[in-house]
C-alpha cells in the first residue's frame, strides 16, 4: 500500500505545496514604457507553491514563489533521455539536482502517473492573484506532511548549493 502524497482542499488559504494548475505567467520582454499597449506573452503553467506556509499565513509576502510541475510522461517528451531505464529511479531517490518527484494524485501506486517539479524555474506571482485563482479552482490538491517537508528540504538543498572554483582531485 503506497500512501498518497496529496490531500484535497477547498479553501482560499494558500500553503507551501499547493498545486495550482493553469497559472498565468506574463513574460515581459520589452523594457520600454510607452502610451500604447504592448502585446505581452502569457505562459500557462501548472505550478506548485514553494514559499513557506508561515510566510503565506501571516501575509508577509506580496509575491509567492512557485515552480512548474509536470507529469513525468510529459517531461519525457521533452527530455527523452529520461525514458532510459533507471533515470526516474535516480530522481525518485533525490539524486538529480533541480528535480523532485511527487507521487500521483489519484493513483499513488502507479509511478508512471507521478509528477516531477523543476526547481530551476521559479516564478513569483502576486498573492492576491493566486488566492483568486485558487478560489476559482474549487477542490484542489496540496502536498501533505511529511512529503511536504521532504519536498521543502529538497528545494532548500538545491538552492543552497555552493559551486567551488576547483575541487580536491578524485581518488583513483
Amino acid at each position, binding site marked *: 500500500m503506497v500512501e498518497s502524497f496529496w490531500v484535497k482542499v477547498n479553501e482560499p488559504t494558500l500553503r507551501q505545496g499547493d498545486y495550482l494548475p493553469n497559472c498565468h505567467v*506574463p513574460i515581459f520582454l520589452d523594457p520600454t514604457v510607452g502610451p500604447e499597449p*504592448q502585446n505581452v506573452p*502569457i505562459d500557462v503553467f501548472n505550478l506548485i507553491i514553494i514559499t513557506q506556509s508561515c510566510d503565506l499565513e501571516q501575509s508577509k509576502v506580496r509575491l509567492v514563489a512557485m515552480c512548474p510541475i509536470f507529469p513525468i510522461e510529459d*517531461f519525457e517528451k521533452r527530455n527523452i533521455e529520461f525514458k532510459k531505464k533507471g533515470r526516474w529511479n535516480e530522481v525518485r531517490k533525490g539524486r538529480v539536482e533541480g528535480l523532485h518527484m511527487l507521487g500521483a494524485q489519484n493513483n499513488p501506486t502507479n509511478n508512471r502517473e507521478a509528477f516531477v517539479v523543476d526547481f530551476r524555474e521559479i516564478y513569483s506571482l502576486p498573492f492576491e492573484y493566486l488566492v483568486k485563482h485558487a478560489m476559482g479552482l474549487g477542490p484542489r490538491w496540496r502536498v501533505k506532511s511529511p512529503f511536504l517537508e521532504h519536498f521543502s528540504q529538497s528545494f532548500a538543498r538545491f538552492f543552497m548549493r555552493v559551486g567551488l572554483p576547483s575541487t580536491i582531485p578524485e581518488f583513483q
Partner: protein
Amino acid sequence: MPTLTIPQPRHYLLDLPLTSDSMSRPPLHGSAGQELIRSEAKIREYWNISCEQIHILREAHEAFRYQAMPPKKTFMVPIRYYLRGQGEPLPYQIDDK
C-alpha cells in the same frame, strides 16, 4: 585462464563476463565439474547485474542534464504599462519581545 571483462552498455545478456578458452578446455565431468559449471553461471549472472548497475550510474552521472519544459500554452495579451515609481522597502516587523 579466464578473465573478467565489463560488457558494453545494453549488451549485458550477450557478452560473456568470463572470456576464457572454454571451447578448448577439456569437458568438465563428475559432480565437481557440474558444480563448477553452476558456479560459473551464477558468477556470470551476478556480474551482468553489477555491470548493468555500473552503466546506469555512469550514464546517470554523465547525462543528468535536462531542458526546461515549455508552457502548456502561450497567448498574447495587449498590456498597457504604467510606471508606479521606484519600489520601496516593505515594512519589516521585528519581534523583539
